[in-house]
């Protein structure tokens, strides 16, 4: 009887140890000590928000919070982020306030937006991110290996590839020149150089020579549809702006 009681007690102690170790594993797996230390010593809530969402990069929540605080906004400004990131309006949105579309916060604004197509195969360059709100393609640039002078005589084709790998031609351009000395200006108006799920692909055909191996990346550039010069700049930090319409 006593033996049975003893065994029961030692099994109970064993279980308690197992419970203890499992809790330690959960704490260790999630770095709880480190995180607690950081919350207490180093990173307050605003700092952590800035670390996660960036100050003026990505969702740029740090800049939004800064503008809201500095200008004591009593309205919800319009927010446009030119990076392909998750929406960040939520961070300063106040449901009790009115919207004001004349005051605009521009995040990651660039006058020209560049899309770098990376080389996949000898005759295949792709861009795999989302592209949105593009109204034109204005320039094509080539980067070559060792910056060697490269002459191309052929047709550049830009395709949109959907998730079923079906190709749809967006733009084609006959090229017969040295490609790496200066950008090729094209100014092609299109709504088709936009995609949420798809990929874009550049291929050449009708080639008269074989210089494709020299091409490293191909960069398509578009002028930003938002003309900042038409607005009054109230605040600027790096590529983030707080602007107001002039009228």
């Amino acid at each position, binding site marked *: 009887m006593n033996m049975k009681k003893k065994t029961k007690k030692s099994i*109970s102690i064993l*279980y*308690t140890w*197992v*419970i203890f170790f*499992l*809790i330690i*594993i*959960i*704490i260790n*797996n*999630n770095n*709880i000590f480190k*995180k*607690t230390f*950081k*919350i*207490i*010593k180093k*990173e*307050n*809530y605003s700092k*952590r*928000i800035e670390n*996660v969402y960036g100050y003026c990069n990505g*969702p740029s929540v740090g800049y939004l919070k800064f503008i809201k605080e500095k200008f004591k906004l009593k309205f919800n400004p319009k927010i446009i982020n030119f990076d392909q990131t*998750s*929406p*960040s309006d*939520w961070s300063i*949105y*106040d*449901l*009790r306030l009115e919207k004001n579309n004349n005051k605009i916060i521009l995040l990651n604004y660039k006058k020209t937006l560049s899309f770098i197509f990376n080389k996949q195969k000898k005759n295949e360059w792709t861009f795999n991110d989302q592209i949105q709100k593009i109204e034109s393609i204005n320039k094509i640039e080539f980067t070559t290996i060792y910056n060697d002078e490269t002459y191309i005589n052929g047709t550049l084709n830009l395709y949109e590839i*959907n*998730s*079923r790998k079906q190709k749809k031609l967006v733009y084609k351009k006959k090229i017969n020149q040295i490609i790496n000395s200066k950008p090729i200006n094209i100014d092609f108006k299109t709504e088709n150089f936009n995609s949420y*799920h798809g990929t874009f692909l550049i291929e050449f055909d009708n080639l008269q020579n074989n210089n494709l191996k020299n091409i490293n990346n191909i960069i398509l550039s578009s002028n930003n549809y938002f003309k900042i010069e038409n607005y009054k700049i109230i605040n600027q930090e790096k590529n983030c702006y707080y602007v107001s319409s002039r009228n």
Partner: protein
Amino acid sequence: MYLQEISLIIFQVLFIYLFFNNPILNEKIVNKIIKVKHFTNVDLVILNVIIFLNLLILISVFSINSTYFFYFYILSICLALIKNFVDKIKINFSYKNIIILFLFFILSLDLAYEIVFGWDVQWFWYLKALNFYQDEDFLNLNKLPLSGYPHLGPYIWGFFWKFPFNNYEYLGRISYVFFYILGIFSFSETLKINNQLRSIFSLFIILATYKYKLFDGDSDVLIFIFLLFAAKFVNYLYQPEKKENQFPIIFLLLGIGNILLWTKQEGIIFFTFLIFSMIIFNQLISKKNKLILISSCFLLIFLRFLILHMLGVPSIDTEVQLQADVLFFDFNEFYYRITNILFYIFVYLIQSPIYLITLPLIVISINFLKNDPLNKTLLLFTFIVLGFLLFAYFFTTTEVIFNSRNSMTEVLNGFSGVYLLVIPNLLNKYLSNNKNRYLK
């Protein structure tokens, strides 16, 4: 030093714990009013969670001021505590409670540190929570993105964000962590083993399933939690000794069904599948109770549609609707969609620790528990859910691969808790068989 933040987390954890752990309905009252016996203390806490969340649905839909409700509820808890004191009911604080409280605290710290929101949370869930945090009307949801999405999850978030400390948003999401731990520890009570082993089982489940992403503000984790609550009570309905509790348990299940209905659309779908599978194979439930259960499920769905229709709020998500062009497809398209859906189901199943453990156990149980009604229920549930997934992903307006990659993990995790039922089913049968052998 930012001690203020850490102390807020500690107080919020203690507040939520005490808020739900002091049952308004104590054992005596429960026995008296709804004549339930053999309910554990955790069951009573869950009962209070179910009552509280159903009240939240009412006050949110009818735009009753949440401050009044909060003080009313706190007053009720105080009165219940006095009543418990008068009735000489001991405050239950076992070592299991200490584990729950401690885990609640450490996982809350993780949540407080990480703070990242998922894409959908930044798009619409946060704004819904903000709507309630800022005491805006239920109808104000119409002005926000995806107004047709159910609102209970963000309402809970907004409620505990505001009460009692009215500070960081994540204080609201901490309540999700409490429900998660409570659901797992509650489910462990289905195992007929000692409390220490149940705690070990719970810790293993937490170890296998916990990741911060579950608590990034999306309501998907609530589907997992509430279906886990439901799975426990479904398990009760298969036990002959709990037959006298049948009606109150059915009532509780309907309470959970209502919560799921207002939490996320797929929640009530999986709940209905589970109930349907159960009433087919569970011979312990009387025909009358089966009828009550299934008709009440449809009544709850109808009531939600009716209330939302009367308030002029869309009852389904209006931005993602079935469009006619998804119905036109050739054989290649059929093959493309089906193979991709099955592929992603397989991939995400093997990525989930719960399925990795429970699906082989289900296969084993087909052989070992041939005529077991709970096992048959799980098998039927599996077939219905598989059919539903194929249908839902096949006829979607969004591209199949994109849709599967973006939502299938959450959908599969949502009802994974139901599959945990196979563990108590196998283990309890094994233990009882061995005990009989030993007794012989």
